[in-house]
Each structure stands twice: as structure tokens, then as C-alpha cells.
């Protein structure tokens, strides 16, 4: 209490590390976009595979999704960073190994979102398209996907927002994102209060408009 009253906030020093902050922000955004795009590609591929009528195809995809949904992301990041190169006996660039866990995690959720969007389409749409003589590819492209993507967008944006926050976990494998950059500045300035407050504000300033946008999207899809 007394300490709080006495503490003199000084953001000037902390914010003078403009160059470092900018780099950290860049790394956070790069990992967010990279792992979201990567995860989206995985999601579309795995989501389509789940529609194949063969257990040999769907079962491995199911296990993939469940493994990533039922283990902590932090464990995944650490495992792919430290354990995978040893298991595979290959050397992976650090930046790549660090992003693997995040990408596969996003992929698992994107798979679920994609599948959910597809199966939410009324079965009458499928039978009407088939009755007209459309092939699987034609009915997907012209009938199902145009309706399903609309429904996939809001959950997808929400998951991307979570993903941006999750990139802060890269801290544990020393990737210089916003969070890790903060810790470096702390060790330089001994000003953890200002630094971590700034970090929190930075995340908030990026994400708050995104959540507003997501809410608007959701409202528009609902009507």
C-alpha cells in the first residue's frame, strides 16, 4: 500500500526503447499472421479430409485434432521446439520450430471450425444439388462452401484473436516477440511495472478493435 503510494511511474525511459518495441511488435504480428494462415490451410485440408467416407482418412485427422485440443499449448510449443528436432534427427531453424506448435494448434481448431461450417448446412441442400446432377466438387464449390464460409468467418476471427494472444507463449523459447522484448527491457531498466503495463496495453490496442469487428461480423452473418 505504502509502496504503491510512493512508486513513481516513469514510462519515458521504458518507451525510449522504440526500436526494440517495434521489432517485438513485428515479431508478434508476423507469428500471428503466419501461424493463422498456416493453421487455416491445415484446417481446410483436414476439414475436407473429414468428409471422406473412409476411416483410414478420418481417424488420423480426428486424433490430430484431439491431441492438440487436449494438451496445453505451452507444452506443444516446448515439445516441438526441443523434442521434435531430436525425434526427427534434423536441425530445424529456431524460428520455424518455435512456430510449429502454434501453427498445428491453430490447425486443429481451424479444422473443427471448417467441419462445423460444412455440416451446419442443411442436408436438403446436398440432396437438391445431387438430384440436379452435381458432382461432389461442383456442389461443394457452388452450393455448400458459399453458404458455409459465411458461417465460418466469425468463429475463425475469434480463434485468430485468441491465437494472437497465444503468441505471447513464444516467450518460453526465447523468440523476441512483444512479451519477450518486454522482459529484455525489464532487465535493462528494472522497470517491470511500466514495461508489462505497456505490453498489456499494446495487446489491448491491437485486439480490442478486432473483437469489435468480430462482433459486427457475427451480427451481420446472423441476420
Amino acid at each position, binding site marked *: 500500500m505504502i509502496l504503491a503510494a510512493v512508486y513513481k511511474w516513469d514510462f519515458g525511459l521504458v518507451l525510449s526503447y522504440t526500436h526494440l518495441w517495434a521489432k517485438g511488435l513485428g515479431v508478434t504480428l508476423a507469428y500471428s499472421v503466419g501461424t493463422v494462415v498456416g493453421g487455416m490451410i491445415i484446417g481446410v485440408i483436414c476439414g475436407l479430409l473429414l468428409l471422406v467416407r473412409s476411416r483410414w482418412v478420418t481417424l488420423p485427422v480426428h486424433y490430430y485434432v484431439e491431441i492438440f485440443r487436449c494438451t496445453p499449448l505451452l507444452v506443444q510449443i516446448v515439445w516441438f521446439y526441443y523434442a521434435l528436432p531430436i525425434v526427427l534427427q534434423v536441425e530445424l531453424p529456431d524460428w520455424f520450430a518455435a512456430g510449429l506448435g502454434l501453427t498445428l494448434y491453430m490447425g486443429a481448431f481451424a479444422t473443427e471450425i471448417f467441419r462445423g461450417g460444412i455440416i451446419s448446412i442443411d442436408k436438403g441442400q446436398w*440432396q437438391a444439388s*445431387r*438430384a*440436379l*446432377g452435381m*458432382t*461432389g466438387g461442383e456442389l461443394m464449390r457452388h452450393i455448400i462452401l458459399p453458404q458455409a464460409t459465411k458461417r465460418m468467418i466469425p468463429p475463425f476471427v475469434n480463434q485468430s484473436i485468441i491465437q494472437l494472444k497465444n503468441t505471447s507463449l513464444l516467450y518460453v523459447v526465447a523468440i523476441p516477440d512483444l512479451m519477450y522484448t518486454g522482459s529484455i527491457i525489464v532487465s535493462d531498466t528494472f522497470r517491470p511495472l511500466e514495461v508489462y503495463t505497456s505490453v498489456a496495453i499494446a495487446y489491448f490496442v491491437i485486439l480490442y478493435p478486432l473483437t469489435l469487428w468480430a462482433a459486427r461480423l457475427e451480427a451481420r452473418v446472423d441476420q
Partner: protein
Amino acid sequence: MTSSSEVMVKAEGLRKSYGTVEAVRGVSLEVDRGQVVVVIGPSGCGKSTFLRCINLLEEPSAGTLQVGDRLIDFGAKHSMPRGRDLARFRARIGMVFQQFDLFPHMTALQNVMSGPVIVKKMSKSEAETVARDLLAKVGLATFADRFPRNLSGGQQQRVAIARAMAMAPEIMLFDEVTSALDPELVGEVLDVMKQLATDGTTMIVVTHEMAFARDVADQVLVMDAGQVVEQGRAEEVLLRPTNPRTASFLSRFHSTIGERKA
């Protein structure tokens, strides 16, 4: 070559089971070009399943099916068409469903154009001509740019009929197409179907509209528990049924069959 009537659909001993449930148990039917066959029977007797077997939305478990010159023997291996071949088979048969199932992201016009454009790869302008003609025919020329959600049930169902007709099918299947409609909208859809019949469209119609059966059907098929229990000319089957199960089923409708149109 000598026969005056051309067989459009010939099903023999068609069966379909779902696990242990046998929904269709050996149904045979021959439909000539231009004929209207009405299928009636109590709920759950397998009418929909039989209809869906004809355009292979369901794969029959046994029997043979001939549509045009294509003969499929479900007892034989590799006889059932797959993939693109299956799609092409279905393209020759039009089907209209109880719930209309229009594509909600397309206007009425785009719905009717969808088959020719997506399946037949017809040019957009050519397909539009076909589609506008058909919309006019079902009385919806001025509704071309409406989306399904802005159409009444009866209008939606008429668009669905036009959509199926746009493929110029060899035969049309109707599965209780008026059952989901408010009573006052049933007439406009039945009128369109009567017009198609008059124009010589070959049709198999599952319906509970007995007056329609009496006025339009060349042949009536009565199903019960997956089998055909009576079959013949509409007048005979509807007014003088020989099978007791047909008689008891029809007794519920006798007021509608009796009242003749002026």
C-alpha cells in the same frame, strides 16, 4: 421398334434396407413416356425411399433399374454408377422435395439457372433464356430477382419445379411437394404440376392429394410396408380398390376422391 409406347423407367424387384429395417421390399414399376404415376400409401411405407432409389439418392440393395437406355443391376458388382457417372445419371432425372430446398444464396433466376450452368456448363446467357422461360411458365416471371426468403412457400416450390425442369429431365419425381405448404398455397403448385402433365412430362408423384391422383394419374401405385399392394388405372384403384389395406387407407380420403370437378 414395334411398340408404340417407350418405357422411360423400369424398376424390377427394387429393395432398400437400412441396417435391419427394410424400407422397400421388392417394388416393380414400369413408366411409359408421358405417363403420370401417382404413388400413395400410409406414412413410413417406403414411398420416399422408393422415389430416392430411382435417381440413386439411395443405393438400392437389390433389384434392377432402367432409366432410358441405362440398365443397372444392383445384384451385380460394379453396376452401380459412381462419381461423375452417377452425377450424369441423376442429371437426367428431375426431383422436387417437400421442403423445396432452394439455394438461399441465389435468386430465383440463379436457382433455375444453377443446373444448366453448373452441371451442363451451358453459357450464362443461354441458361438465362431457359430459366426465364420456365419462371414464366410457373407464373413467376416477375419474381426472378427475389431471393428464396422473400418468396412464399408456394412460390418457392414453383421455383424448385422450374429448377428441376431446367435440366430438361427425361422424368420428374415429386415427393410430397405440397405437404409443407399452407392449404391456400397447395392449389398453385398442383396447377403447375397439372400443366406439366398436360405438356407430356413423364412424372412419378408421391402425394396425399387424392383429387390430383384421380384427375391426373394414368397409373396409381399403392404401397404398404415397403411393398406394392395394389396397382392399376386411377379410377379402378381409387374408386374400386380390391385390396382391403388399400380400401382402409383410402377410406380416410373418400370425401376428396368423390367430389368431381365441374
